[in-house]
């Protein structure tokens, strides 16, 4: 696609002798910023501030949860600006509507009509969100920050600022712009040997109109993009000074421990033993909510101890009898009903009806919890008709709005203090606000700050879960062994819409789904619907390869003739992994491929079976085409992270429902990959130079299938349900494929 840069109305202004530049949220009558003192609505979202002391401050409107966004986005602005990285400062943009994603989206939609990253699009179209509400979002998700805010916001702002500085220098030095160059926060005039710092030029530059279509650098002109720049957030994360939401520590603050109905949505019936509990040391109040009870104390441990002594009863509903088996039975029934079409190409039902040999399989995955390391928490302080909020969230603005709504306050009366996130993975998106709602309601009884903090058990049992899903397949070949028909019927439809689509060229496809809601709350979980569908798709494709006597790698490659990027990534992974060559005895490899969030990822897992029948993953080779790497070391760390996150789910991840409630309680029964289980991870960066893809999520989807496909070669057993911890395998190698 030809890139059109005319996406933003840029604005600029002079503040404190420096230049501010950013996106204008509304078309101003003139380009000067509105006078805030005069009470006019300011329209400028400032991404860049160039101060007289020659420092450049970049404001980042996304949340840092370890993905390196506080570094990557400023790199993109600073590179286009030709700023000296040592003079670049980074600030978290405040949670005000000036920094809403909606502003960006509106700019996109109005000027281009280009596709909006899935997470934002999905939220905008989801039943719970109206399009208008997207204007008040400040989302970090959908692996979208770099390819969206960075590529179409930061770079444009940096380039426009540089052009203004050149204009200012031209006027100051009395030479044409064509004789000027920029580097390391200086404008140089080579012919005369004169140089001016950006700081010296900032106030003059602010007098020029910023271009909405500045000329951007080509990749060979990049000075920062493409280099591994150390992350700016890391020093504070090795000395304990990094502040997370849970670390809010305020004078006179109180602490709330909460017990919510273990059966989602059931109402609180009664609370007993309150008098004895209220007499305990430090206990301030017992707060009853619709479906929960909280104890507020002067120390979190005291609140927790007291909560455990209350006699808490919840009402019962029909949901009390729901369990994982009944949910799967419900799914099976739903898949017998009329389905909703997803992809219909050719005539798969017709081909299957006449086929002599049909391959059939049913796959399932369980619910998954996010289990971010920082348990859910939120501190709220009501005072003077206002409210201050401290919490780590993937949508600062959305959470500000949520607190305002629950508190019955105007949004401008709520201040959200942003912090680092102790893990996000989708849990801290505004689609799941139960902690925020509780914290606001609990704190409304006090005029001091109250920190509501969930125990790990609450965090695990009151999550918004990656859904349990069933997926049924049928497929058939022609008599030359070519895969002709693909039928896939599955449960649920979540973002991204294309998650159940396979990249392979198959003449007849019939992909359809049934909606089958349960009372278990849904949440976006790293890579969302790809997390289950890539396991299904890439396992079943593997079954078909073996059934037709073809090598699983070659079988895939043969069906990618019209997908050269996918083929290149698959080849790169196989080559780097030394596919099926020189493997130690008892080891086997499995391969899987998927495109998600604009990036294509192929993984080869080298696996063996331990004497106790469990699975050991020795090495994962991961080839990635994300277009171009902005910060290659961050790409590597996100890929490592994505692989291990997916591997944890494949090996251990299982939330089961019994009596309407989550069975698992804490890490002992919802285990995680640890150092001893960690495979060697080798990464191949396939730089296609195509449009930037996301990185926070794409490495998660393929790993489960890659491992399960290797397990099949070792054991002859096809893994059609996760997690792998539920199996005790015996090595019985299948005849090696061609």
């Amino acid at each position, binding site marked *: 696609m030809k890139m059109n840069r005319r996406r933003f109305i840029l604005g600029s202004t002079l503040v404190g002798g420096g230049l501010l530049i950013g996106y204008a949220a509304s078309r101003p009558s003139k380009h000067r910023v509105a006078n805030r003192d005069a009470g006019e609505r300011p329209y400028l979202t400032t991404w860049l501030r160039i101060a007289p002391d020659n420092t450049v401050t970049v404001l980042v409107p996304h949340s840092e949860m370890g993905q390196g966004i506080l570094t990557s986005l400023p790199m993109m602005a600073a590179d286009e600006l030709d700023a000296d990285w040592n003079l670049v400062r980074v600030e978290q943009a405040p949670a005000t509507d000036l920094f809403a994603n909606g502003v960006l989206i509106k700019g996109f939609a109005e000027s281009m009509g280009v596709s909006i990253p899935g997470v934002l699009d999905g939220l905008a179209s989801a039943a719970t969100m109206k399009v208008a509400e997207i204007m008040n979002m400040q989302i970090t998700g959908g692996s979208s920050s770099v390819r969206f805010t960075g590529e179409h916001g930061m770079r444009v702002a940096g380039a426009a600022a540089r052009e203004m500085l050149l204009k200012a220098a031209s006027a100051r030095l009395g030479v044409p712009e064509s004789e000027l160059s920029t580097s390391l926060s200086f404008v140089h005039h080579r012919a005369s040997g004169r140089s001016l710092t950006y700081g010296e030029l900032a106030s003059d530059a602010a007098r020029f109109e910023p271009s909405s279509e500045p000329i951007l650098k080509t990749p060979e002109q990049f000075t920062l993009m493409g280099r591994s720049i150390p992350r700016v957030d890391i020093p504070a994360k090795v000395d304990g000074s990094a502040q997370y939401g849970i670390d809010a520590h305020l004078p006179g603050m109180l602490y709330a421990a909460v017990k919510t109905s273990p059966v989602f949505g059931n109402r609180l019936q009664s609370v007993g033993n309150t008098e004895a509990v209220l007499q305990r040391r430090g206990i301030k109040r017992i707060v009853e909510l619709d479906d929960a009870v909280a104890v507020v104390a002067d120390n979190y441990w005291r609140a927790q101890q007291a909560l455990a002594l209350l006699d808490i009863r919840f009402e019962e509903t029909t949901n009390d009898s729901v369990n994982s088996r009944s949910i799967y039975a419900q799914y099976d029934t739903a898949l017998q009903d009329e389905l909703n079409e997803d992809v219909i190409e050719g005539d798969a039902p017709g081909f299957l009806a006449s086929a002599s040999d049909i391959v059939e399989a049913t796959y399932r995955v369980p619910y998954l919890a996010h289990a971010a390391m920082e348990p859910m928490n939120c501190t709220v302080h009501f005072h003077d008709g206002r409210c201050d909020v401290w919490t780590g969230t993937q949508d600062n603005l959305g959470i500000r709005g949520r607190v305002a709504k629950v508190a019955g306050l105007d949004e401008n009366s709520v201040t959200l203090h942003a912090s*680092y996130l*102790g893990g996000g*993975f989708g849990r801290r998106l505004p689609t799941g606000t139960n902690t925020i709602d509780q914290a606001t309601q609990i704190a409304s009884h006090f005029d001091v700050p109250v920190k509501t903090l969930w125990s790990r058990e609450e965090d695990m049992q009151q999550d918004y879960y990656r859904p349990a899903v069933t997926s049924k397949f049928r497929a058939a070949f022609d008599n030359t062994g070519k895969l002709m028909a693909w039928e896939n019927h599955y449960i649920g439809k979540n973002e991204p819409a294309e998650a159940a689509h396979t990249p392979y060229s198959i003449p007849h496809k019939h992909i359809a789904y049934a909606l089958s809601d349960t009372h278990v709350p849904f949440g976006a979980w790293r890579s969302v619907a790809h997390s289950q569908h890539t396991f299904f798709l890439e396992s079943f494709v593997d079954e078909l390869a073996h059934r037709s006597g073809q090598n699983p790698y070659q079988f895939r490659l043969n069906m990618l003739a019209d997908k050269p990027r996918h083929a290149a990534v698959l080849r790169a992974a196989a080559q780097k992994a030394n596919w099926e060559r020189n493997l130690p005895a008892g080891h086997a490899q499995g391969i899987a491929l998927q495109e998600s969030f604009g990036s294509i990822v192929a993984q080869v897992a080298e696996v063996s079976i331990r004497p106790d029948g469990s699975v050991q993953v020795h090495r994962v080779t991961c080839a990635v085409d994300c277009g171009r790497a902005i910060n290659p070391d961050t790409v590597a760390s996100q890929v490592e992270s994505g692989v*291990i996150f997916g591997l944890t789910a494949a090996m251990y991840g299982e939330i089961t429902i019994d009596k309407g409630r989550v069975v698992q309680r804490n890490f002992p029964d919802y285990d995680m990959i640890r*150092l001893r289980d960690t495979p060697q991870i080798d990464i191949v960066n396939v730089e296609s130079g195509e449009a930037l893809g996301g990185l926070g999520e794409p490495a998660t989807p393929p790993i489960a299938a890659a491992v399960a496909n290797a397990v099949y070669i070792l054991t002859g057993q096809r893994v059609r349900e996760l997690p792998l911890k539920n199996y005790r395998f015996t090595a019985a190698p299948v005849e090696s494929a061609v």
Partner: protein
Amino acid sequence: MARFRVNGKEHQLDIEPDMPLLWALRDELGLSGTKFGCGVAACGACTVQVNGNPVRSCVTPVSAVEGSDITTIEGLAVNASLTPVQQAWIDHQVPQCGYCQSGMIMAVSALLASNPSPSDAEIDGAISNVCRCGTYPRIRQAIRSLRASA
């Protein structure tokens, strides 16, 4: 009255003897670098050192550390000079979300103090902390770079 030293400073706290050290540090002393992760000693986010030994503070009552020397993440760097472990964490760009890293660094520091050149198996055996972001490959590289023979 609970008495112990934290990062060299003497503290006397009028708290219950069964209060876990974690909450004494966080809520009573305002030392927030030590993190709450699970409350059952399963994840290691709350790891501190008691007389040099790694201890999961979420299940350690203050009565068990009476008179002890406690070191938290805030007490590692002396005069803003990072320890080799902290520096290796920066050099290898280990942390992502960073939430587990205080406990991770405290556990690794204790391991290297008692065993300056651990084998890979000894590292795997000693460091059982959970990192949900999966920074383990870099943790392993960072520890290997710190081995006495490295």
